[in-house]
């Protein structure tokens, strides 16, 4: 693993692009994959990922561990995540501050948690369990949310700081999620980012969101189906200028564009990382 290469911008690896990537070997830092897409026994997913992994650093991003499940994480799923991590030896492994499974039913979305001491103890236990089984540090991502709960006891940034301190995990700062949640709950994203525990951040995500207007209200929805918004770029510029550079991913998971369009977004992130001066010149 070359550290300077990882300290660059990367892209989500999509099946639509993988043949081209292997032929053209584009000059970008790294790729990220969703762990759950590589839990099958064989076939094209593993065929292509093995070849991409031989050329680029990799990040494995879990979307199904459900660390916020009150009835516990599925032990079988954690074992399968471990198999993926051992096989591909990624530089980074990350998951979400969310839940998606209850009583064995999987809802295929990252669902919100009430930020209370009780939830914090539960999530800390689960992150600790996952890190023990995987034998490595996890990064936990701040979620995008559409509703909040009665009786919450702390803001999300305090919850994440306490989780990182108690479990030793790192954080994945998704700036698009900050913008989406800020608009939906009426807070200022600058205030959120000012109180975010940046000292634990190990990766940044950037993505596009949809604007949903009806009944006199505007909701932002975290869709990953378009270019990164100007507001997200601007906050990204601020964060890396003030808090330093981190490996930065462009997430584009539906209405996946042609590779040059995704690559242009990665290049944009790359040029901002370089401008921020937080990078070694060799990484340019």
């Amino acid at each position: 693993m070359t550290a300077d290469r990882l300290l660059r911008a990367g892209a989500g690896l999509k099946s639509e692009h993988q043949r081209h990537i292997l032929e053209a070997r584009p000059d970008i830092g790294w790729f990220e994959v969703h762990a759950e897409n590589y839990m099958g026994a064989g076939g094209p997913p593993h065929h292509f990922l093995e070849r991409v992994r031989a050329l680029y650093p990799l990040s494995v991003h879990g979307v199904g561990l459900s660390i916020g499940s009150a009835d516990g994480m599925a032990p079988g799923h954690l074992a399968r995540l471990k198999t993926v991590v051992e096989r591909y030896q990624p530089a980074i492994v990350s998951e979400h501050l969310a839940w998606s499974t209850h009583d064995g039913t999987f809802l295929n979305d990252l669902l919100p948690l009430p930020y209370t001491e009780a939830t914090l103890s539960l999530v800390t236990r689960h992150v600790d369990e996952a890190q023990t089984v995987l034998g490595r540090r996890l990064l936990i991502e701040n979620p995008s949310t559409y509703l909040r709960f009665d009786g919450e006891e702390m803001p999300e940034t305090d919850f994440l700081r306490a989780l990182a301190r108690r479990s030793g995990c790192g954080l994945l700062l998704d700036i698009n999620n900050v913008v989406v949640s800020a608009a939906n709950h009426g807070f200022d994203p600058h205030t959120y980012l000012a109180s975010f525990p940046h000292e634990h951040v190990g990766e940044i995500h950037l993505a596009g969101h949809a604007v949903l207007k009806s009944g006199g209200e505007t909701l932002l929805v975290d869709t990953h189906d378009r270019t990164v918004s100007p507001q997200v770029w601007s906050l990204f510029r601020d964060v890396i200028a003030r808090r330093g550079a981190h490996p930065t991913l462009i997430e584009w998971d539906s209405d996946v564009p042609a590779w040059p369009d995704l690559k242009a977004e990665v290049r944009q992130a790359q040029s901002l990382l370089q401008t921020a001066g937080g990078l070694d010149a060799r990484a340019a």
Partner: protein
Amino acid sequence: MPEQPDGAALADLQHRFTGAVLQSRLSVPAGIRREVRSTHERRFGVYRNNVKASLAAALAARFPVVARLVGDEFFTAMALVFIERHPPRSPVLAEYGAAFATFLERFDPAASLPYLPDIARLEWARHVAFHSADTDPADLAQLAELPPEALGSVRIGLHPAMAVIASPWPIVSVWTTNTYDATPEAPAADWTGETALVTRPHLDVLVQRLPPGTDLLVAALAQEIALGAAADAVSRTQEGFDLATALSTLFSAGAVAILSQGSSS
């Protein structure tokens, strides 16, 4: 002062949340912070939509010929019923949809297309083959190299990605025209059943028709019955069974993984 949420309170919240996401007739669970009432419903609706639309899209991608046969709008409505009755039981989305064919058998609004469940079985088999274990297929030449006296006792190990779907409907013809033709061919008047062979010798999943009796041969081989005994049994029950054609079809499709000599059964 609201009740202090503990582990049990969170479990209860997640239980009610899960029910209300899947069953649209259930109201938004208590414990969610109230904005103005319409907003409250709409916000919960984002989660309902994220869950159901993503699962319906996954099913549409997995069963494209079923979707083409019934039309996108009908497929989505049908998928939403399936999702409510059979939500995923695994966070690995590739495992979702195994029950879809059986669901279609009892889905009355689609009863005018009686072959739909078998088309779904064929598409599910293709999906499973895509993700199955990798093994190089055996070549027919390996069989040809054996001395004639050894042929009867050879055991044919099937490839992990292969599957056979027998149907009273011409499922291979229907699947093929709806996969490759801009305008699908109209069904022939005298529909006869077809047996589909699904394989993935390397990266690409293949679909073809099996000659008569070959599915019975495959079933016998799967039970580790030696080739001679398996062929004899099929010949007795299937008129016109041709072993050479059956073997050449299976080997050229990559349905065979390994040949071995065992004691006769």
